[in-house]
């Protein structure tokens, strides 16, 4: 982390960048926040550790409108989002100085708490340069520990890889964290009967409180005005009028980001009700792979996505009849 701070100070001081977009140390052991730093002194509060899960790519939409370059710290998975935003002309490459930061898997304090750990006072082992496989946690109710892997975000268990897809320079080591089959959950749902599928999603989506956190954090949801925010639209953004509407919001969103979603996992990370929203998007990714050949949104900037491209041997709409 020190190397990152030193480099950021250098780039700020020599005028290469006007600001640094990273994470600021939190007031609890697990709540650093995304932050802009404009002076070398302010970087004393910079932090990069296991709890810096937030994908900073989307903040670059606003940062691209500012004077001068913004140094942005991107983890390998965040670079897919940045590429996708570049493809969609939502960020300006010339306004970004990308430091690809190493990642050994990001942590989810909710997962730690689900193991029964409460009253957290301090956590060690989450530091970016720590090679620990176990988190040692001091709590008001005694010392506890938790395996690093057990505290990781779902997305890290199906990590797309250690490679940064776009960067100006790299700092820090990454670790292979993938230990689960990416489409296993989707296959499990595909194997369900229609009634079971409906019951599964009904149960999950009935928890939705329409806070819109999934949409607002999503780098693929970058419309300047969302249709659900329009007061001219019968469907309010603030409450689910009925159980149909709570599903409609999520299904429309999933369709809208189909082919553009990089599977960054932010939707599931931020959902206050723990709804596995990534499942919708991953189902579409799997279908697109099956119907049009393997494609990864954001793997390269400017790539032609299957759903916005046309080839003579593309799947015909009648494929629906065969697939059911």
């Amino acid at each position: 982390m020190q190397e990152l701070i030193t480099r950021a100070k250098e780039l700020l001081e020599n005028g290469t960048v006007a600001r640094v977009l990273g994470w600021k140390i939190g007031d609890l052991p697990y709540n650093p926040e995304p932050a802009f730093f404009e002076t070398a002194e302010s970087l004393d509060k910079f932090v990069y550790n296991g709890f810096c899960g937030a994908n900073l790519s989307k903040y670059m939409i606003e940062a691209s409108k500012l004077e001068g370059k913004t140094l942005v710290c991107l983890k390998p998975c965040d670079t897919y989002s940045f590429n996708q935003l570049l493809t969609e002309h939502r960020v300006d490459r010339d306004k970004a100085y990308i430091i690809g930061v190493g990642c050994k898997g990001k942590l989810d304090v909710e997962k730690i708490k689900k193991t029964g750990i409460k009253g957290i006072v301090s956590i060690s082992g989450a530091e970016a340069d720590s090679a620990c496989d176990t988190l040692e946690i001091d709590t008001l109710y005694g010392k506890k520990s938790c395996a690093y892997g057990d505290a990781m975000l779902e997305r890290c268990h199906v990590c797309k890889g250690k490679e940064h897809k776009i960067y100006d320079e790299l700092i820090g080591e990454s670790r292979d964290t993938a230990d689960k089959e990416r489409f296993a959950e989707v296959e499990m749902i595909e194997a369900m009967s229609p009634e079971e599928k409906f019951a599964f999603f009904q149960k999950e989506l009935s928890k939705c409180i329409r806070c819109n956190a999934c949409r607002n954090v999503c780098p693929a949801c970058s419309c300047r005005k969302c249709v659900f925010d329009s007061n001219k639209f019968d469907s309010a953004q603030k409450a689910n009028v009925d159980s149909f509407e709570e599903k409609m919001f999520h299904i429309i969103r999933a369709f809208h980001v189909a082919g553009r979603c990089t599977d960054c996992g932010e939707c599931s990370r931020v959902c206050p009700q723990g709804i596995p929203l990534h499942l919708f998007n991953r189902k579409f990714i799997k279908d697109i792979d099956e119907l049009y050949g393997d494609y990864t949104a954001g793997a390269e900037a400017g790539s032609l996505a299957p759903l916005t491209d046309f080839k003579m041997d593309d799947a015909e709409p009648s494929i629906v009849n065969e697939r059911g």
Partner: protein
Amino acid sequence: MLKIAKKDLASLFALIKESGELYLPVKVAEQTNFAAYEDGAEFDLDTLKSVKSPKDVFFPQSETLYTCKNEGKTIKITPEELVDQPFVVFGMKACDVGGIEVLDRVFLSDPVDSFYAARRAHGTIVALACHEPEESCFCKVFGIDAAEPVADVATWMIGDELYWKALTEKGEALTEKVSSLLTDADEQVVENEKTAIRAIIEKLPYSDLSLEGWNGDAVAEKFDSKLWNELYKPCLACGTCTFVCPTCQCYDIKDYNTGSSVQRYRCWDSCMYSDFTMMAHGNNRTSQMQRFRQRFMHKLVYFPANNDGTYSCVGCGRCVDKCPASLNIVKVIKAFGEKGE
């Protein structure tokens, strides 16, 4: 002081349910929220905080106010019926009860909100002391005692037993109804539990948070602070903080076209949303900084200005737990404190 064995709680809930609806923390798909108790539901009294506060028992996220329907050449307007049956909410924490006191100031003051008032009149609150407070809790800062909730009935979960003490007439009436399941208990056990809870609260990281400078007189000074321009930046403009909050009370009124009628309903609004307080002339808050500022100014300055110094935050810490960008009211208060503003 009375008590009941934890293993008999299902019988207690069944008995309460005989005379009306019972709301309590229920676990659905791994998350605990207050809901009407149905047979076979998994009630969860171990999770300290429900994701959403229990405020929607009294102030639902969405409720129909009246329905309009064309009948020949006239329009028939049917007001929604008010709650007229008694119900019980079990397991609210001291902070949650504090949240209801804040809502009372809004909805029970003139003009009285009849929908809210009907629910308050018919609801009996059984509060549960916080056995093991967590690091994001800061109710002490607002003068709330998590060890001794003030409601119709106060309860304590100690070991394998739930201790029960009626505090009001409504509470006495409920106790009477379930008296066959309650036995006499030793007051001292509860006193020891209170002492233990208070000892933990002293050690919580936010318990010494200072509210100095936050009051109804600080409008101009706080409003014009340059700090807001920095603080709002990570905010995603989602409504999580407002929708999990036990005191956020802003709502919007909208029409829903059912195809054959129009339902006029109200739903929680969020100052984080772009059309918050939208008026015919447009919106008086045009930037996210202004909307972000509104949330904290309302809780810590405007509300006390209009309510004898009472803050509209009770320190439940749900926003601390749930903000996707790790922002929260504590960080805002601390940021002002550090700058001496």
